[in-house]
């Protein structure tokens, strides 16, 4: 189907644009799956609630700044580097350090009053409930 579209006798320039768009989308998708952003986030969704799980090793719960604005959740955190001691040699430094900020958009409106955040063993788990006004309503069909 893809090649059929390319071979169709339409405007060449438009076709090239479509092709370019598809290619860039392919490349962007790859970048998304190999995200090196810190902290990495998993999002679990059902019709009524959303669970956001994030790996934040080495961060104290007090250093986690979590904010919700409309449908956007912002996670701000910082991780300190081990303070250097005298006569200490560094062989490897792979773990990231500094200040980190991430924002993600939730798939639907949530109730900001009913957010449940927990932290254990370097894993942050935040549970959101869908706003009652946003819940899908069942419509009964009456036979006429």
């Amino acid at each position, binding site marked *: 189907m893809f090649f059929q579209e390319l071979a169709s006798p339409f405007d060449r320039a438009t076709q090239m644009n479509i092709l370019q768009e598809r290619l860039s989308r392919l490349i962007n998708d790859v970048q998304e799956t*190999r*995200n*090196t*952003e*810190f902290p*990495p*986030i*998993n*999002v*679990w*969704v*059902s019709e009524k*609630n959303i*669970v956001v*799980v*994030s*790996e*934040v*090793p*080495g*961060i*104290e719960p007090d250093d986690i700044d979590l904010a919700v604005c409309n449908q956007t959740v912002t996670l701000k955190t910082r991780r300190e580097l*081990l303070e250097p*001691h005298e*006569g*200490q*040699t*560094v*062989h*490897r*430094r*792979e*773990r*990231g*350090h*500094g*200040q*980190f*900020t991430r924002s*993600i958009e939730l*798939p639907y409106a949530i109730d900001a009053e009913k957010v449940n955040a927990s932290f*254990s*063993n*370097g*894993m942050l788990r935040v549970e959101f409930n869908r706003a009652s006004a946003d819940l899908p309503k069942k419509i009964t069909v009456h036979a006429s």
Partner: protein
Amino acid sequence: MSSAIAERKKEEISTNQIGEPVRNRRVFTPLADIYETKEHILILADMPGVDEQSIDITLEKNVLTIQGFTPSEMEAGLRLVHSECPEGNYRRIFALTEEIDRDGIEATVKNGVLKLVLPKSPKSMARKITVKSE
């Protein structure tokens, strides 16, 4: 944007070299920092989801193996729509060059970070020789 970017990500390792696992689970290399002082070697490893019960450290000759087992992350009734941190266990093997005082090894886990202090054995410590004048 973050001021310092975590350039490296935990990477999946091929388990073939170490032996086949019973359960088909992914195994990742935890990111680690290694520091050395005159008295000890300090290893910090990021292992989110691991507690003191689910960590396994072995030192055989000069090969140090760190293993961490994480609980399943499945959320009942929910489906995963975006995934950046796939679940899996951790394993990393280090070859140590210096003699380690095995009895003095200290391992602690806090907030998903393993801190391993490996004291150097006294005989391998550099000794300062004072030169006396005759």
